[in-house]
């Protein structure tokens, strides 16, 4: 029997991991803002976590699954139902003269958003464990 603080605790912990990796990737984009032939990278993990949370909360997948009516049929290699995050190149505008295509404004914006969500997650986890602790501590107040 494992003691769980709350159903979303595990999800929030994984989200914190991914946000820390994303912070590193954005820092490396900013550090390489002048390196020739560098393309900015990013990581997208919201879909992977949404799939996991649907499994946890038993809501079923948000997409209609393809039915396999015969075992000889090939199953659909569904990208969107995997629970692994995706790294990708965040690009779309012309590289500058030295082959670099990092936009410093976009990078600093993404970094602010990421750190706000990180702090929000930490606060939410703190509140959850506070509730859990208060339940444990409350029995000591019964004289």
């Amino acid at each position: 029997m494992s003691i769980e603080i709350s159903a979303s605790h595990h999800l929030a912990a994984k989200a914190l991991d991914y946000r820390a990796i994303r912070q590193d990737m954005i820092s490396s984009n900013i550090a390489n803002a002048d390196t020739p032939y560098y393309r900015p990278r990013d990581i997208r993990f919201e879909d992977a976590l949404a799939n996991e949370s649907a499994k946890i909360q038993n809501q079923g997948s948000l997409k209609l699954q393809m039915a396999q009516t015969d075992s000889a049929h090939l199953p659909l290699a569904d990208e969107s139902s995997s629970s692994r995050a995706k790294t990708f190149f965040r690009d779309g505008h012309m590289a500058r003269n030295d082959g670099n295509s990092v936009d410093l404004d976009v990078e600093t914006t993404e970094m602010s958003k990421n750190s706000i969500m990180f702090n929000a997650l930490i606060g939410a986890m703190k509140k959850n464990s506070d509730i859990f602790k208060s339940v444990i501590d409350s029995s000591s107040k019964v004289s």
Partner: protein
Amino acid sequence: MSSIENISGVSSAELLKQKSKIEGNGGEDFADTLKSAINEVNELQEKGDKAVGDIATGQVKDLHQAALAIGKAETSMKLMLEIRNKALNAYKELGRTQL
């Protein structure tokens, strides 16, 4: 001078008649109130949980709504725990009455 009425002793039969008059008003009894309170706290906890899940998956529309939901969950849980403590203390106090 009006007559002074005798102070009659309290008979248990009269008390029983009064109790059924109170209950007959259709009020809930204690067990139902308790159950609905626990259900409410449980719902608020689940909403708070879902808010944390939404923040994690990045689907949250308003960060302050999520923060409010989590705050409500915490407050309602702590309130219920305090009420439970008081009720238990009162019960124990009653048990200590000397007969």
